[in-house]
């Protein structure tokens, strides 16, 4: 990269800075982890105890027992993966239409997309639910998938990236006789890899952590997801924070497992594409 030889001093300073920043950022995670190993009554004490007196590892199996974590994890993974795939495909398709095809009404239509992003879900939750009930999608996985898979946000995100791809490049391809679909598949898609990864991570995390959606739409125990399971602990009359924290730690693992290999591809994949802006 850009740096030449750096002095030992700058190097050390950078490391110290990084370590401090990372520690601060991770502090809540550390607290979460330590709380997950405590007794209920030990979780909130003044001053904060970073180390539990005795490590209550049994909190983890307890979570496993109390909520059907295996089923919930399976559901979470299933829904998240399916929705992410559909979203990335349909959004990348639509974004091409919005950024690289010219037709009347395009911008008006796009403004509709952007507009809905700004409207809180609570506003149209009821009509949406009525509609879904008519279609028989309430309390089914396909119903939830149908709700989440066609995100306006994804289209918006990808369109912004596609706009950075120079039109001259596409014109050249058109002159070479490539159809619009060919241009999309052969030119735009490879160039948009980083954008697609951004959307993948964004969608994955959003759906993975989505709580309100499954809460409203899913009733059957065997169809529930992890955030719903976590929320089950948060009952007004039974607050077991150590279990909530244990469940949270557990729910983090799959996302992390996805992120770490993805991250490499993501940042390095961009460097090789070398075209944007």
């Amino acid at each position, binding site marked *: 990269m850009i740096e030449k030889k750096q002095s030992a001093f700058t190097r050390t300073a*950078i490391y110290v800075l990084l370590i401090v920043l990372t520690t601060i950022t991770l502090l809540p995670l550390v*607290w979460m982890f330590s709380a997950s190993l405590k007794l209920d009554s030990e979780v909130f004490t003044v001053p904060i105890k970073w180390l539990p007196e005795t490590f209550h590892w049994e909190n983890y199996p307890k979570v496993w027992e109390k909520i059907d974590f295996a089923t919930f994890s399976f559901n979470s993974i299933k829904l998240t993966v399916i929705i992410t795939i559909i979203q990335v495909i349909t959004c990348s398709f*639509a974004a091409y239409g919005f950024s690289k095809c010219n037709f009347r009404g395009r911008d008006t239509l796009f403004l509709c997309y952007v507009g809905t992003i700004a409207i*809180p879900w609570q506003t149209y939750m009821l009509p949406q639910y009525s*509609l879904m009930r008519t279609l028989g999608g309430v309390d089914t996985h396909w119903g939830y998938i149908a709700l989440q898979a*066609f995100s306006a946000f994804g289209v918006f995100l990808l369109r*912004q990236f596609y706009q950075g791809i120079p039109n001259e490049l596409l014109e050249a391809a058109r002159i070479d006789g490539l159809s619009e679909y060919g241009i999309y598949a052969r030119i735009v898609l490879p160039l948009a890899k980083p954008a697609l990864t951004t959307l993948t991570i964004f969608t994955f995390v959003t759906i993975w952590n989505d709580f309100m959606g499954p809460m409203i739409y899913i009733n059957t125990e065997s169809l529930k997801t992890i955030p719903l399971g976590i929320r089950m602990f948060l009952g007004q009359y039974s607050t077991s924070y150590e279990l909530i924290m244990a469940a*949270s730690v557990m729910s983090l693992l799959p996302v*992390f497992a996805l992120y770490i290999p993805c991250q490499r591809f993501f*940042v390095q994949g961009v460097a090789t594409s070398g075209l944007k802006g």
Partner: protein
Amino acid sequence: MANKTIQGTNRKISLNTRNTVVGLSFILPNFIGFALFTLGPVVFSFILSFMKWDGFTEMTFAGLKNFQKIFGDKKFLESLGHTFYFAFFTVLFSMTAALALALLLNRKVKFVNFFRSSIFFPYVASVVAISCVWKAMFMENGGVINSALQMIGFAEDMLPGWIASTKWAMPAVIIVSVWRNMGYFMIIYLAALQDIPTSLYEAAEIDGASKWQQFVRITFPMLTPSHFFVFMMLTINSFKTFDMIFLMTEGGPGTATQLLSMYIYNKAFISWDYGVTSAASMILFLIVATITVLQFRVEKKFNDFM
């Protein structure tokens, strides 16, 4: 339609039609789902903003009454103000932090992946869990943050009350929000940074430009598309923030952290007044739409200028 037109314009029209068909074929797979499950309900609620409806019994036409109602409501205006306050600082600080972190981590250091992943972590963690943690950290006496402030020499009576004080609650939720956002946007900036051709820096180096000059003249302007994008995403998200604040402060103390999204939620699920709910949403929509359009304008101008 095409048959009736004269030969000359025929080609043009068919080209137009073809363009439309091709364009639509790209959009349609997404649009069908979007129109059915999002746009439809949204348009329905747009209509609702001119109606009086409790969600169950018959609705009646209300004209502009709902809008009159919200603009006469002190709480609405207050939450509108809070929303701007929250969004402004969240966007500003998140962008700054994300960019700074991206610059810091865009180099060959050991464990760079570990550092990047750690900074990214807050974005992934479940809101339910992190809001519990932050609440405990913001405790006035004995909380991690105030203990740390005390250690670096703040007098006890100078310590902020954070979420237990009307003045500091908003800064507290902004801090959490920035903490959550910065990792994700850092990644977006990182991706863009790697796209800046190294030759530009090499040339600048030869010209004897300092690191700071390189940043101002090369890095910052080269990141323009990312700035716009990050700004837009952050703006939309901050205007919609609900969960985190609801879990951390419930809009309190008093109404100190009540945002528009919470006002909307309360009107929908406590007052059962869908007309007012929709009217308030329309205002939110107008604000974000205005910002979006302005942003597009500026971006276009900027691109032409470049």
